[in-house]
């Protein structure tokens, strides 16, 4: 911003006015920001510093709160803790199966819904229902459907397919949660894809049609490349969301991660250590590990998507 001053006399006044105005603007700005700065400071930025610091302590919560510095002991303990490996394996398996399926399903549904068809908005609203329903309710509904004489097993036996003890069998309990989550999350990403599909310029398709491209060719050479940034967004959000799996396994297993640790996830393990074993320092160290895993996986995905872009 340049201030052009002509004549010597008013210059001092102008400068002073300008300074007062600037100070007023600054005060207004901070006035508007005050609630955010206060709340984010206390409940967002301070906790991060706290987490990093306290992961090196043993925290005694019962009675008088006590902190004992233990150095790297929490982190060393992590590598020897069998339940950490179980939770990590469950979570990674969960992410690896759920994210690709829900992404493909979302893309497929969006492509179908993007066609000019009657009742399109009605279908969108219908598909969206699971996304607005709480995870607690969804989990209870599915537990009811999964019980050994429940709806799912009845349907499976109707089609002469094998039935399972979805709630009690360690081999399939996590699969049950996976199915539920794919079902519940795919519609959200479907809408994201729908929005992106509408941003693809129609002229590209017209040009392709003039060149005699088939439907599949336009899909692979126009639609898919155009959707790549959105796919990155969907996959990253999917990975972050699935890595944080908690509500479903907590309600499903009544907080235990059972049967036989088969639904134990990282966040559930962190919760158990913090509030069941009251081992806050160790739980914080596990939280830091989760944060690092999330950051690293985001960076890896970014790299993967970048490389594909240059193919």
């Amino acid at each position, binding site marked *: 911003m340049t201030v052009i001053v002509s004549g010597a006399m008013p210059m001092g006044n102008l400068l002073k006015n300008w300074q007062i105005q600037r100070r007023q*603007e*600054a*005060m*207004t*700005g*901070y006035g*508007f*920001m005050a*609630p*955010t*700065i206060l*709340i*984010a400071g206390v*409940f*967002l930025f*301070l*906790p*991060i510093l*706290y*987490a990093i610091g306290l992961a090196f302590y043993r*925290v005694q919560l019962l009675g008088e709160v006590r902190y004992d510095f233990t150095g790297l002991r929490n982190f060393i303990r992590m590598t020897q803790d069998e339940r950490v490996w179980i939770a990590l394996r469950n979570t990674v398996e969960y992410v690896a199966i759920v994210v690709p399926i829900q992404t493909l399903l979302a893309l497929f*549904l969006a492509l*179908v819904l993007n*066609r000019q*068809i009657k009742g399109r908005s009605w*279908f969108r*609203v*219908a*598909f*969206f*229902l*699971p996304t607005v*329903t*709480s*995870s*607690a309710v969804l989990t*209870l*509904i*599915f537990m009811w459907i999964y019980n050994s*004489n429940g*709806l799912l097993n*009845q349907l499976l036996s109707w089609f002469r397919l094998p039935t399972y003890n979805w709630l009690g069998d360690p081999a399939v309990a996590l699969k049950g949660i996976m199915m539920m989550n794919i079902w519940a999350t795919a519609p*959200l990403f479907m809408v*994201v894809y729908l*929005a*992106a599909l509408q941003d693809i310029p129609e002229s590209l398709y017209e040009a392709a049609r003039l060149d005699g491209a088939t439907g599949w060719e336009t899909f692979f050479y126009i639609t898919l490349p155009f959707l790549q940034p*959105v796919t990155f*967004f969907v996959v990253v959000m999917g990975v972050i969301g699935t890595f*944080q799996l*908690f*509500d479903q396994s*907590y309600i499903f297993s009544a907080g235990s991660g059972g049967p036989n640790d088969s639904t134990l996830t990282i966040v559930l393990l*962190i919760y158990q250590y*913090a*509030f069941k074993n009251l081992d*806050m320092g160790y739980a*914080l160290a596990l939280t830091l590990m*989760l*944060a690092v895993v*999330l950051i690293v996986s985001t960076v890896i995905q970014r790299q993967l998507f970048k490389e594909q872009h240059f193919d």
Partner: protein
Amino acid sequence: MKPFRWSTGILYTVLIGYALVTFLPFAWALSTSLKPLSEIVAGGIHLIPQNPTLENYRQIFTQEPLFGRWLLNSAIAAFFITLFNLLFNSMAGYALARIRFPGNQIWFFLILVALMIPGQVTLLPKFLILKSLGWLNTYQGLIIPAAINATFIFMMRQFFINFPRELEEAAALDGLGRFETFVQIVLPLAKPALAAQTIFVFMGSWNEFLLPLVVMADPEMFTLPLGLNAFKGEYISYWNYIMAASMIFTLPALVVYAFFNRYFIQGVRFTGSK
């Protein structure tokens, strides 16, 4: 009348099939909530109850004395969290978009960083801070940490950046102060963005499970998701009650969703396309 095409037929089959997949669990839950326990124990797939009854709903409110309280707690928390978010996120977004103050860029950068931090990472320190404030097991312990949201501060900033400046200048010439201009001129024109925010924040706080689980220890202070979980433990084989409670819990969210549906899609679009 267009001639029948196979592709259209397949399209509708897929759409209707998936709509069934979406609806069946809800229909089954609703149906269960209207059946007496004897019909459930008898087994068999009857989507339409043979002896429909509202008895289960009555039982929840009369037999479970805390159910009404949980409903109230959830409503209080969701109401204030939504109100504060609308006000604070808009104020911060407006300041970041429109007001030149030292540190503007730094705060914007910090908001972007905050966007990327999942709530689970800050959960335990948040608990420790709430504990030392003496806010555990209180409404403010649930409401204040959730009173702002980086995603919507970012969204409001993007909204206000594209907002015509002339209106504010006209208001300033009329002698309105910055805050009066904001409340009287700017906010009313931001209704679509505020509506999208309302629906997301309301749904988020209404459905939140982990934070109340950590903050609230006393069953009297439970919100509905926690209450429902406790309810499940208590009435483990009374699926008729559990499903009735689930339906009551889902209804307010559905009403809000039906009411703001248009803005919901807009909001997803806004947050989705970055």
